[in-house]
């Protein structure tokens, strides 16, 4: 708890969020992070569909995917679902 955090008189009642969820970087929860083997990856995009946090994005300009480590919680579903086993979960 830092002194930057607000007191009970300052915050909205009913636990209403006063910041958008994009400001809560849940990526720092993870223990293992997904790392991709570019040789094996076929860009099938199954991982982007299975990711429960929407933390794997298709980047059209790069014609490639990108992990958003600010929001990846390290659950490992992408690695489990990858049909060519191109994703490895590595200890952070």
């Amino acid at each position, binding site marked *: 708890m830092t002194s930057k955090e607000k007191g009970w008189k300052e915050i909205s009642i009913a*636990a209403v969020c006063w910041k958008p969820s994009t400001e809560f970087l849940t990526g720092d929860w993870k223990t293992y992070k997904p790392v991709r083997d570019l040789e094996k990856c076929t860009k099938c995009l199954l991982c982007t569909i299975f990711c429960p946090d929407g933390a794997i994005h298709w980047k059209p300009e790069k014609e490639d995917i990108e992990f958003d480590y600010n929001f990846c919680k390290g659950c490992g579903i992408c690695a489990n679902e990858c049909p060519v086993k191109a994703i490895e979960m590595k200890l952070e």
Partner: protein
Amino acid sequence: MKSVVIEQKTLALNGDEAVAYAVKQSDVDVVAAYPITPQTIIVERFSEYVANGEVETAFICTESEHSALTACLAASLTGARTFTASASAGLALMHEMLFVTSGCRAPVVMAIANRALSAPINIHGDQSDTMAQRDSGWIQIYAENAQEVYDSVIQAFRIAEHPDVLLPAMVCLDGFQLSHSVENVNVLPDDVVKKFVGVRQFPTVLTHEGKMAPLKLDPENPMTMGPLAFPNYYFEFKRQQEEAMKNALRVIREVHDEYAKISGRTYGDGLLDPYFLEDAEIAIVCLGSTAGTVKTVVDELRAEGVKAGLLRMRTFRPLPVEGIKKALEHVKAVAVMDRSMSFGGFGGAVFHEVRHALYDLDKKPFVVNYIYGLGGRDTSPMQIRTIYEDLQEILAKKRVENPINYVGLRE
């Protein structure tokens, strides 16, 4: 302000019907409920009003009490005025959602026809059900008779929805003694009640879009209520609820006084209802319908020259601590009556709190506990008289031999 008491008609209603009638008049948007004795008449009568087209309320029959309160909570968060009713095991099944409702600051009003908890199964009256929920963040008002039930339900909407409060409220009526006993109830005209309860007011809150918006779910102003709060914020939200309870002490009195002006009826100051207490040497403290029996005994004792009094607690949550101290500081011996048990504790819940409130007084009265009426057991005027006689004996001996006593229990 000049008080103008409105002309009223008298109906023969039992306590449950008095609740249903008050809800009918209070412009309620959503009622979701599941039947349970002795509350069932409330939602039965109300469903008749819905079927007859006497109200425009959306009536939702749910598959459990947990769902009933969840539906009321969700509707309340959209800005709707909501009501439900329950008792005993039904209230116990709502336990989880009671805390979610108060934490989301949803001003749901619920009538509870107080009933014993199983096992053994028992459908009759005692206050074990609501006493077990006293820490759930709900306001609790205990009525003495069907008239007060009617008046309290109308007041409860105003209290719960007040922007300084925004807490759910229970109106508690003793099962069978009040829920099923027909009494004369004076009712206000529909338009007067509708004007009194008014429309819901919403405080503004800062949303995640950085906007100030009324606290309700609205596609124009999206917001998230009651999501995850980690150790760095959860505590602050709970402290806000405590402040709302403190504000409720003021708002309950204000709403009571405003209602008294149109109805001509008062219940003490709305929090505590004393009876022959100013010069009392011995007094009983109790909640609910038992106060009627105690008053009869106080009248008899006063005729005999005994300085006996009564403090009826109308509001148990929030606890009117300062009022209790002021009301009882001059009394020499106090008997607190509990219609529920706190197994393994030192007496019942009301005893704990009243005795606790008096601890800071320089000169404390003797305070003893009487547990009574569990599972619907009748409590007679003779038994109440015995309690006052015990208090006289305590004063004569200047000591307490039995702090915890059981009324009408066979050894």
